[in-house]
């Protein structure tokens, strides 16, 4: 057994790790969710975190995650019993209650929602997810790649408008997103109902533990507990620890010299608007252009493709040693640009078709495709 607990004391690390894996755009302004989750765990007690292999393979489970805007969620927080509505809706599919929940994606606010759902429902949380990062669409998952059906999709708003959608993945996405806009800007979703046995091939395992591990590194530095050095030394040590924990590469670092709406046309399938920014790499003098559409999707170094989705692009603020993104940054701020390799399944042909640059409207081949 690898079971362990997530307690109130783990929430700061969970939050910091969730910001890291949010790929810089989607994690901004999610601190409210930490306050909210701490209060829930203080009432319910710890959540049991288990590996999929530790559960009975026949256990009914479902992914939990929010769709919509974190800004809207910060303004209209969950009322607390949304997971109860979802679990009730999905139980009909199995003819039995859910036995466990897993994250849609262990990143941004969606690293916290499944913990809250498990706490409120009194169920174990499976240590896995379906993205290993943030993607804008709820069917851009490894669950989908493995053939697990997204629907029936159960959704509920903070005002408790609820719906059970039984349709194809892309269609469910479109209908639910329209509803999210009308229902206050976000919905909590229960999806990919399956038996735990299906997760063996369909999930990215250990995702929640990885978020906690990276979050602890960030918290240690943010609190100043790391007494090994100051200023430059602390910043370099944090970068070293983050790259060691995630396998990330540092693409460069320096001053943000340009930031604002991107001139490129974006596909209408995605919410939000494209944003562009340029970082002047102090060491090499190169200009790193970053394209964001909800999250960071592409990095060009002096015009050459350096990194792209599904790999994660993350920004570290050098002055605060916190993860940051376009909403917080202004020209003149100093950042490091990190690229974290996505889970291997995302580099398959099917994975790149679903979550690669082409899926975001860029007529580019992912660097991993160049050798094919």
């Amino acid at each position, binding site marked *: 057994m690898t079971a362990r607990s997530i307690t109130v004391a783990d929430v700061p690390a969970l939050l910091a790790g969730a910001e890291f894996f949010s790929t810089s755009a989607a994690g901004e302004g999610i601190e*409210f969710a930490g306050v909210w989750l701490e209060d829930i765990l203080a*009432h319910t007690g710890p959540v049991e975190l288990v590996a999929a292999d530790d559960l009975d393979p026949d256990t009914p489970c479902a992914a939990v995650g929010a769709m919509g805007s974190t800004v809207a969620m910060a303004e*209209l927080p969950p009322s607390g019993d949304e997971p109860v509505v979802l679990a009730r809706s999905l139980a009909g599919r199995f003819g039995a209650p859910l036995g466990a929940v897993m994250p849609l994606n262990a990143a941004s606010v969606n690293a916290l929602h499944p913990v809250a759902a498990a706490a409120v429902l009194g169920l174990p949380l499976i240590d896995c997810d379906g993205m290993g990062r943030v993607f804008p669409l709820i069917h851009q998952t490894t669950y989908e790649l493995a053939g697990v059906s997204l629907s029936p999709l159960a959704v509920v708003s*903070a005002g408790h408008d609820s719906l059970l959608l039984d349709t194809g993945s892309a269609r469910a996405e479109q209908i639910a997103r329209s509803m999210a806009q009308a229902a206050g800007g976000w919905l909590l979703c229960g999806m990919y109902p399956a038996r735990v046995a299906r997760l063996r091939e369909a999930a990215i395992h250990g995702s929640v533990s990885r978020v906690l591990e990276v979050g602890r590194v960030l918290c240690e530095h943010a609190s100043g507990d790391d007494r090994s050095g*100051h*200023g430059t030394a602390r910043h370099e040590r944090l970068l070293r620890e983050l790259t060691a924990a995630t396998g990330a590469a540092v693409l460069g670092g320096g001053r943000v010299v340009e930031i604002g709406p991107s001139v490129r046309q974006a596909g209408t399938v995605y919410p939000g608007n494209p944003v562009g920014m340029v970082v002047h790499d102090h060491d090499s003098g190169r200009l790193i252009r970053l394209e964001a559409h909800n999250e960071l999707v592409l990095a060009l170094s002096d015009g050459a493709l350096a990194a792209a989705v599904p790999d994660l692009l993350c920004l570290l603020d050098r002055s605060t040693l916190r993860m940051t993104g376009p909403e917080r940054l202004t020209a*003149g701020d*100093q950042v490091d640009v990190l690229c974290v390799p996505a889970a291997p399944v995302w580099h398959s042909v099917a994975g790149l078709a679903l979550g690669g640059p082409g899926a975001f409207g860029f007529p580019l081949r992912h660097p991993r495709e160049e050798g094919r």
Partner: protein
Amino acid sequence: MEGARIGVRLAAGHAHAALVAGGEVRQAAGRSADDRALSRLLRGLAQGTPVQSVTWDVSAELDPASAGSPVAAVRILPRMPFRGLGSGHPSPLLRALVGRQAAVIGGHDLFGVELAMLDIYALLRDAAEAEAQGLTALALTATGAPGCHDHELVAGELIRDALPQLRVSLSHQVGGLGLLDREAATVINAALLGRAEQVVERCGRVAGGLGPLTSSWFVAGDGGRISAERLRLLPVLGLSATGAAALTGAARLAGVDDAVVGLARPDGLAVGHVRDGLPHVATDLPGPGGVRMAVPQAALTPISGSAAASASAFALLAEHDQHPAVVAVAGEAAGGGDHNRAATDRARAVAARLPSATVLVEPPAELAAIGAAGTEPSAWLDTVLYAETAEELARKRAVVEQRALTLVAESGARLGSERVVSSRALSVSFLRSGSYRLVVRAGGRAEDDA
């Protein structure tokens, strides 16, 4: 000496004051326990010079942990919290200040669409119970209030009519986006209403003693100045003002409008930025008791450790900043006492590591007091809007900017001096295309600007 301005920081029974007129700076410090002593200190500082304004940094006087009184907190939401889950706040300060917590049905979404009708009966019942419990103030926070504050206004009116003794703070007047953070700010604001009343009256009385033409103002946490009436209504805006005032003072003494500033203290360096004469601010910083409030305050990054360590860290930041570097002694008057000597030594060590263009400021009076004297009217707005085209965005943006300029004028800006300092329209992730968060900052020159 003409057109003199005085800045005063009140803290722990002491006043640290600076008189600024043209290029001349005088300083005074002393006990501030009673009005007479404080009046005497300011008259001695003025030495007969006509004083146009006194600007007070009262953030220490408004410490919510010691000066706040428990209040009722009422949220307006489309659905009641389930078993109270997610309603609490982990901060001991907030828990101490919330004497009673309730929720009533109502609220809007970010774009102003009503999510539920306001339950006025539940609202009045909760307010009456709060008053019966002995609470004298109520913090009202409606979801979506930055997009539409109708429910807060109606609720405030109803409570004032029914329970005129109960003071009400409305969240849309206090802070920006984010219900929990804005509620925290509104609770702290309501808790300080009584104390703010006393502080404002006292400061006005003392400033009035310098002459009938001397006006009284207050430093806000964003580095701007606000009127007595505004501080009386929104005391939370006066918190965390000392760092902002120090940044303003450093830039003024260095003679620059844009700079990366290192404030040298005995135990470390605090690094901030000044843009267009105003401190760079953020809304997601921990405020009093570590509580995050959706209220702008000067962004200061602490660098602790030895003078050499802070010097190398600041040098790295300054090297890559396009604006000049300023290092300032951020204590009381330079050279006085061990405390200040340590800060002065640190400032000199840091400046020695930087290029020769770096300005070292060893102020002739307390830096925050000098900064307080030099503060100018400012305003900050944070809202969400929807625009399908660039033209529509420009039109809606202009309306918000005009609102910010009006607030600047209300803070005593000279006619025609109001200007938009920054205006950022940020695409909101994961909402329909065309959703923007608009953050506007405006400033102006005060009527008494010499």
